[in-house]
């Protein structure tokens, strides 16, 4: 089943006198269970595509059907509900609420959940929501850090909280924007192995990145240039992030003591 069905997508901006054509006609289809990376240099339109995919922005032209919903007719409130129910966001800068516990951060999408259609207040029971948030955090391996604030967590851990937040409402797909951009090699491997694990369990993931080595962990690479897709092919030699992580850790075993000390101070 197709989760994402885009056809004839164009997005133009008026910047002063100049008309910027960020996306000039784009077709993209993503099936359920896929793990897609979108690559391309700055200015290729991948951020714009990401905004449109995430229902944060509307295309100037074209149709975007998300999990059977035609987004052309949707207004701001419907967009908010789609983001809430269909999309799980993971950002480069983590975008967690500061001074708020990991558990509460993960609970946030459930907070805005509207069961029984738009316009009705979320009726999810508080206890049930907390339970779901706790489970999501356990799934990303942070079951022991429920009450930690983002400032008390490492970058990799913060990103895992963000991933837990993205999954908690059981969305149609996870949309990740440069999720490893702010992470070091070890944390990058941690996060990518988590993504792979989630994907194996059936989650559809679309990830924007400009690092080919990160894209190598996905199943399909879409490359953009000048607002159009220039290549779209499966990953030939798919790497396993969990294995790479083990290898990396073995190699840096002698250094890890030093690193832990540095982290602790």
């Amino acid at each position: 089943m197709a989760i994402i069905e885009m056809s004839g997508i164009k997005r133009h901006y008026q910047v002063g006198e100049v008309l910027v054509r960020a996306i000039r006609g784009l077709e993209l289809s993503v099936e359920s269970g896929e793990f897609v990376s979108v690559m391309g240099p700055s200015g290729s339109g991948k951020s714009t595509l990401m905004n449109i995919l995430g229902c944060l922005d509307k295309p100037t032209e074209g149709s975007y059907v998300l999990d059977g919903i035609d987004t052309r007719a949707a207004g701001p409130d419907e967009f908010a509900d789609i983001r809430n129910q269909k999309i799980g966001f993971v950002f480069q800068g983590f975008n967690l609420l500061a001074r708020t516990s990991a558990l509460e951060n993960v609970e946030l999408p459930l907070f805005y959940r509207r069961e029984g259609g738009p316009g009705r207040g979320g009726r999810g029971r508080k206890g049930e929501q907390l339970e779901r948030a706790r489970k999501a955090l356990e799934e990303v391996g942070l079951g022991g850090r429920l009450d930690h604030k983002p400032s008390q967590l490492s970058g990799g851990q913060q990103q895992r909280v963000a991933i837990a937040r993205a999954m908690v409402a059981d969305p149609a797909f996870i949309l990740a924007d440069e999720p490893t951009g702010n992470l070091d090699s070890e944390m990058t491997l941690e996060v990518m192995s988590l993504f792979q694990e989630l994907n194996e369990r059936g989650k559809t993931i679309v990830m924007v990145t400009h690092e080919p080595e990160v894209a190598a962990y996905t199943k399909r690479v879409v490359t953009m240039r000048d607002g159009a897709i220039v290549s779209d092919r499966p990953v030939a030699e798919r790497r396993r992030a969990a294995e790479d992580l083990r290898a990396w850790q073995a190699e840096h075993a002698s250094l890890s003591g030093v690193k832990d000390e540095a982290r602790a101070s």
Partner: protein
Amino acid sequence: MTAAKLVTLSARSIFRNKMRSLLTSLGIIIGVCSVIVMVAVGQGSQEQVKRQIAAMGTNLIMVMPPRGPQQGNRLTTADVKKIREESSYISAVSGVSRGSVTVVGGEGAGEEANWSTTFYGVEPDYLLIKQWEVASGEFFADKDNAARSKVAVLGTTVAAKLFGSEDPVGQRLRIGSQPFTVVGVLASKGSSAMGDDQDDVVMVPLDTAINRLSRGRYMGSIEMSAVKEEYMDAAQAEITTILREAHRLAEGATADFDVMNQSQIIETASATSKTLTTLLAAIAGVSLVVGGIGIMNIMLVSVTERTREIGIRMSVGARRRDILLQFLSESVILSLLGGVAGILLALAIAAALDKLAGVPALVQPGVIAVSAAFAAAVGIFFGFYPARKAADLYPIDALRYE
């Protein structure tokens, strides 16, 4: 979002910035507090005036010479007599003739004292009307009035000035140039609504006063008590008819007297303090508005500061309305908390004024309710613009905001 969720959310962010929240609501605290205290002081003194006028007597009706530049005073003892004989709603009536006088006394003690005071020429009923009592000796009787006896009953102030600690009953004194005998001393009544000493008085029989002290045919006023409170209007109407007849006034002619009852006197007296109360409350209300502007200011800063948070909330599915309500409820809770703190502070200040400083302050529940509602209204009014600003943010821009 449910109301409970909203309150939790807003309370969390308010308590996250305790110092700032306190400073923000300080404007509301001071505003609400000053409104309540001002109104309390105003109403307290109003209430005091009312109490004191009520203490002037029960079901009091007064007939006075007309106010304004009309024909002069024509109230006579004949009027009093006619009222006493013909009225069915009046239980006690007394003519009152008063004036300033110098009293001299204390010869018995060897030391003469002078005192300027007010004499009241009254009839025995006057004590009933005023609910006044004689502390020692006795009040003069109707026969003293008829005989124009030179007897006097002293207020405690005059008694103290002339006779010190000695018992004045049976002593002699001079009122003006005439010698009088003291037959009684009145119980103390304290100061009046207007602040004058009600015990600074010498009472003599009405006819004695008219013939020997004021030397005029006419009296200052006629005071009386109606039988029952519900007959006040009927009594007033009746008195008017009797007096018009007595003064032979043609139909439609302007009356040469004014009939007023207690509540009319109270109204006249409290009109001034009511105006003052309103004025004070209005000035205090301005500070409440200034407090509201303070809230708006901080909420605007807060919206800018939390742009990223707003973006995050929008990205996980918050609708514009959710964001609007979040910020709106924050400012409402902030101003409500300020309002509650202001109310408590005002209650403390009012109690302190009442108990320690002797300023009468009366905090009425209505004032508390109104100022709490006003504080909430200020929160909504001044919180709306910042909340709208937050809700109108574009999710992409809010997420990218550094």
